[in-house]
């Protein structure tokens, strides 16, 4: 889709908030809203639930199709659909069309929908041409490449580019940053022991990087890595890339105690 011809400003971006952000860490959603609005977008949040990935990856195609139909309809009025997650954005952009191979009409609809779906940071950089955000974060951070974003959507350099411009933030190399953290959605629970072995190695790599902060673009992976590091008693803080880029790095990190009252 050639967005330059099709889309007139202000760009209407539907925020696909993702269920983990919606439920566990709304601050990531607000960070995404801020980043999109700062870049000149009008953000809308249609009533939504989940992208359907848990059902999809459990082999439940009928449920996934039902959820996909709802999602496609819910975002009908948006120029773009943006998710603060490579995994959910990958589901919308890469897998929705595959769901309807046997329904030509729906397949066309899903393909058109998929073409307007993006992961947040790559959308900011690749589509909106954002080169720098105004944010400050005191710390030394390592970046973990979440699998779907990296391999399905090519999210790699974009977050590094924007993080490089955050004042006070020093980025360090994370060995095996492109290796899976062992989350894998329901995998983390269905194959807990295996998942634990993978995330244990990841936790050691993060520790070895010397970073005091771990940054990633997917809340699922962050919950997994933060949960493991906290269980092991490591002091590394885990934060979503959107929070750091939006200057919301002073909030309690993932799994940290609440500083004040709930909003």
């Amino acid at each position, binding site marked *: 889709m050639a967005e330059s011809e099709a889309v007139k400003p202000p760009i209407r971006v539907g925020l696909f908030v993702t269920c983990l952000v919606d439920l566990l860490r709304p601050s990531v959603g607000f960070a995404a809203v801020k980043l999109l609005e700062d870049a000149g977008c009008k953000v809308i949040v249609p009533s939504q639930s989940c992208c359907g990935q848990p059902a999809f990856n459990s082999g439940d195609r009928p449920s996934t199709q039902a959820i996909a139909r709802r999602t496609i309809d819910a975002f009908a009025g948006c120029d773009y659909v943006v998710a603060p997650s490579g995994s959910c954005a990958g589901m919308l952009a890469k897998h929705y069309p595959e769901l309807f191979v046997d329904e030509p009409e729906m397949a066309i609809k899903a393909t058109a929908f998929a073409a307007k779906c993006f992961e947040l940071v790559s959308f900011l950089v690749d589509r909106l041409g954002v080169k720098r955000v105004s944010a400050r974060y005191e710390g030394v951070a390592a970046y973990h490449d979440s699998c779907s974003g990296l391999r399905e959507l090519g999210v790699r350099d974009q977050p590094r580019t924007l993080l490089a411009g955050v004042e006070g933030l020093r980025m360090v190399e994370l060995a095996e940053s492109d290796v899976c953290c062992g989350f*894998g959605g329901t995998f983390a*629970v*269905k194959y807990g022991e295996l998942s634990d072995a993978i995330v244990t190695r990841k936790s050691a790599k993060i520790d070895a990087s010397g970073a005091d902060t771990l940054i990633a673009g997917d809340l699922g992976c962050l919950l997994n890595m933060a949960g493991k590091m906290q269980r092991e008693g490591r002091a590394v803080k885990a934060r979503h890339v959107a929070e750091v880029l939006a200057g919301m790095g002073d909030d309690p990190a993932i799994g940290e105690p609440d500083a004040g009252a709930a909003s």
Partner: protein
Amino acid sequence: MSLAATTPHFKDNVHEALTDARLQRALPHARNFIATRAAAAARLPEFEALRDSARAIKDHTLAHLDLYLETYERKVTQSGGHVHWARDTGEALAVILDLCKARGAKSVAKGKSMVSEEIGLNAALEGAGIAAVETDLGEYIIQLRGEAPSHIIAPAIHVTRDDVEADFRRFHRELPADRDLTQPEQLLAEARAILRDKFLSADIGLTGANFLIAETGTSIIVTNEGNGDLAQTLPKVHVVLASLDKLVPTLNDAAQLLRVLARSATGQDLSVYTTLSTGPRRPGDPDGPEEYHVVLLDNGRSAMLGGQFADMLRCIRCGACMNHCPVYHAVGGHAYGWVYPGPMGAVLTPSLIGVEQGGQLPNASTFCGRCEAVCPMRIPLPNLMRHWREREFERHLTPAVVRGGIGFWAFFAKRPGLYRFATDLAMRALHLIGRSRGRFAWLPFAGGWTRYRDLAAPQGATFQARWRAKSGAVR
């Protein structure tokens, strides 16, 4: 199915592997392949174009497989060889045992062959009183140990140098007990000397094939040691055991596939030995086998053609998928419980031994996609694993707890209004419980998670509830 699969007990196998200190010391070696593959790919600007070319060649071959099989058989026959067709394991074993018995064979020198593992050839030969001698160093080591390969190109990757020394001392009793075996070179020299005699005295040489060429009736193997090449040169009879999917139209096509095979496997540009065999010894030839036989095995491949798992038939057995797999790295190959480990095994195993037996494997993946990213044949391995999960779901083979959980969750996911209301309440409640510590070390219904790691507490009201409150919208 000849080899008993422990795949249904995958979780037990995983536990065993993770608590096996010796195995955990050996496993990191599998990661060495990552850097070597990356370097080889980086050194060849045409690598990605070659992957496309390789995929197209296999897709074309598979779409015309019946015709290429007929051509191949004709060309083998023309060059003085024989093709034996085998529908399944039983037929393949019968053909090979008949060939051995008719020639009074006492020993078979084997080049490395995963298909021979698939049909359980060694056990069948031993059962018939025929010695099967594995000649690939790694295969020889695990044969001594009574184990199966744990990797399709590095069968003994789960074994340490110390293990090899202990095994050699245990089995090579005829050698002086006080000999020095501290250096890997000494272990190699000892194996070379022992196997050299076995090569020279073997009655039959049996190899697999990396490719079968329809154009010329040629079989191709690649090795680094030269073992498969000796196995098909020295004995009087050469038997090639290969599955249908090894067919390739022409030598020029094989040249394309060879360019991606070794690079994806070990990071070499080409393996040391690429040996092309066409029929038996010719008049005037001073060496080479007097008979050349090909056992062409189906064993479920024909049923995969044209279906959801047809892409898997492009596989050229390079092992790149397992070399890059976090699950394989964690537990090694034996945990997969049958012949083929790693992502390719996770797709192939249910195809060959049934999803009831092999269904655990396609579920035990995070779908990280690294296997697909490095597969030279661009096989969409995660998608194929997902197709197996769909088959299981359709056939109600998905565990009841998972099915129930997904059903419960999907009920809400399909009803956004109800979903928003229920989740907001639940998150507010959890927040109140967890806010002081920020996370849970244990939570009912989340034991699978909290057994190994903490779970961050929710921040309170859901994003959607806050957004609607903020923007004044009515819920």
